């Protein structure tokens, strides 16, 4: 794990490879590097998400606050990877996993067996939650926090000293991708 300023410095240094460090326009490139980070994070994440074997490397926990049984999913979550997600109530010390229900119809009209577990459904940027053995009722549900583990675009740290939380395999790709972008190598749009 490295902090954000180290990440930016490593990518900038990698971009300088082979260039004259005294005259290269890539000197003091950190300001430009930072503006490219959101785009690089997005493109690298999408390339991982497109590969089912690699998507799990992007998984991380998000705490989402539910109000009346639903909550808003953070923008960094790759919702197209929702079938790789898991979720549990934060207050549940045993972290009992809920069941993802793929279709809305099955979510609101579960079979008797399906009701034995808490269940959730993701629609666009909203997550819906129904407790075990509870029936769906529009606009009604629990209030509280759940923990959703799902592939996500890496979070840009709040400050330069904060850690960049990604798997090591992803980190090296992020550094390389940012360095290539700094050198003017345009990547194919994901």
């Amino acid at each position, binding site marked *: 794990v490295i902090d*954000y300023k180290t990440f930016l410095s490593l990518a900038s240094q990698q971009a300088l490879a082979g260039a004259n460090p005294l005259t290269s326009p890539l000197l*003091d490139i*950190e*300001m430009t590097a*930072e503006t490219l980070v959101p785009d690089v994070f997005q493109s690298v994440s999408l390339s991982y998400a497109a590969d089912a074997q690699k998507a799990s490397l992007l998984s991380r926990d998000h705490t989402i606050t539910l109000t009346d049984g639903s909550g808003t999913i953070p923008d960094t979550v790759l919702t197209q990877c929702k079938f790789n997600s898991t979720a549990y109530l934060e207050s549940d010390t045993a972290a009992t996993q809920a069941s993802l229900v793929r279709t809305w119809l099955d979510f609101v009209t579960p079979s008797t067996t399906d009701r034995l577990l808490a269940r959730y459904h993701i629609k666009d940027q909203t997550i819906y939650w129904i407790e075990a053995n509870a029936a769906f009722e529009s606009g009604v549900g629990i209030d509280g926090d759940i923990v959703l583990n799902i592939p996500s675009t890496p979070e840009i*740290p709040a400050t*330069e000293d904060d850690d960049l939380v990604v798997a090591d395999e992803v980190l090296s790709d992020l550094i390389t991708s940012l360095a290539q972008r700094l050198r003017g190598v345009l990547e194919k749009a994901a």
Partner: protein
Amino acid sequence: MAVSYQTVLRQIALGAGMLRGESTPGLQTSYEDTTLNQWDLIPDGKYPLSALTDALLDAESALANAIADTGGHPWRSYLLSFTAAITSGDVIPAVDGDSNPIIGILGSVCDGEDTSLVCTEQPIEVIRRWERTSSYWKQQFYYFKIAVDSIIHTRSSVLIQCCIYNRETQQTALEANNDMLLPDSLVPAIVSGALAFLGVENAVMYRGMFDSSVSAIKSGLTSVPSVAMNSPTMAEAIST
């Protein structure tokens, strides 16, 4: 051990033929006086003690200017100071943080809270862009640009390394017989400069030696020509 101002002043007095002494031992007595005073000088000489001290300080300040004008010269460390904290857009001050006059070219621009963090010069456009988007950046940037008389930068404040020379402070140090401000190896240059400024016999020669020293410093050298004491002046002093 550093050379005291009085040691330099004695050499100037000797070179100007101003030391009292009817014989070599008498001259030695005057020469060894820890703090040169009016009674160590010949009574009917051309120069009062104040003129000798002024000439010393004139030569010292000229050498200080030469050092301060030479970026990266190792002797700048004898004159180094910092300005007071400067916020972006402020005019660069003419004095340091202790109100001493700044001389020569400016040194590094450092972060106002940590002078080990040296800022990098950037075009004005880069700094203006940073200002317009300052809430966006997670990184800390250490950029500055000096625009005519002002400085703009990306820190909450910066300190500028600078050389200072305060003649009043050095006058006080001289009178207190403190050590000289500049390195010991500049004693010959100060003596020759002071003798040139006084217009002593062979002043042209001393002027040449002094100018050589100034040129050497400005070319980055730290070795200056040594002064040759004028033997006729010594003879003149002895005969007084």
